[in-house]
């Protein structure tokens, strides 16, 4: 399935400056894996060393957070748009 992934400003320098990347995948997790295999420098910013999505990485299929769908197993159909939306967090101690 041809699926478009929209890339946020913070991650664009890791995908050659593009704001979107076309991948072929049938699940959200597979789409992210294909994105990372094409752009390996992105890997450590998307996932923890244990392979989980980092806390600030939110992935939406259309308008819905995949955490509220079937997470990385969320199925995709041709033409779906996945959007990586950052959140921000931090603090003194």
């Amino acid at each position, binding site marked *: 399935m041809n699926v478009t992934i929209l890339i946020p*400003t*913070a*991650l*664009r*320098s*890791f995908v050659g400056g593009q704001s979107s990347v076309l991948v072929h995948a049938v699940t959200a997790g597979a789409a992210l894996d294909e994105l990372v295999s094409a752009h390996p*420098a992105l890997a*450590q*910013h998307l996932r923890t060393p244990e392979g989980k999505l980092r*806390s*600030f990485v*939110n992935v*939406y299929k259309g308008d819905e*957070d995949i955490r509220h769908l079937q997470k990385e197993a969320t199925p995709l159909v041709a033409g779906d748009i996945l959007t990586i*939306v*950052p*959140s*921000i*967090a*931090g*603090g*003194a*101690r």
Partner: protein
Amino acid sequence: MGLTLSPAARAALLAHAEAGYPHEVVGILAGSRADGVVERVAALVNERADSPANRYQVGPLALARAEAGLEAEGLEIVGYYHSHPDHPSRYSDFDRDHALPAMSYVIVSVVSGRAASLQSWRLRDDRSAMDEETLHPSAP
């Protein structure tokens, strides 16, 4: 390259940090990424009501909405700022763990309600640390 805060952006950032004391405040740095110039800051709401004195968080929808508004005005997202109440303006391990790459992170130390120091940090590509970047004085 470093980062330059316009006088208005710097004043607004410091005023926000002092007004929010003893809680952490957070906001967006907007301007030109190529030039490393912050023309405007936009205050955000710290969603960490459980621990606002030493944590901040802004969820994806609130952040995306605020950033889209700034981008609609022709500004780019240069980075983010937050305050450290009664704590140095150095980044914490928690800050580093949650940092986005390719963004400037300005931290303002607020001691007893007054802004005491200001530093800007950028995450290394390997996420092992954040490096301080020069904060340039801006032309008036």
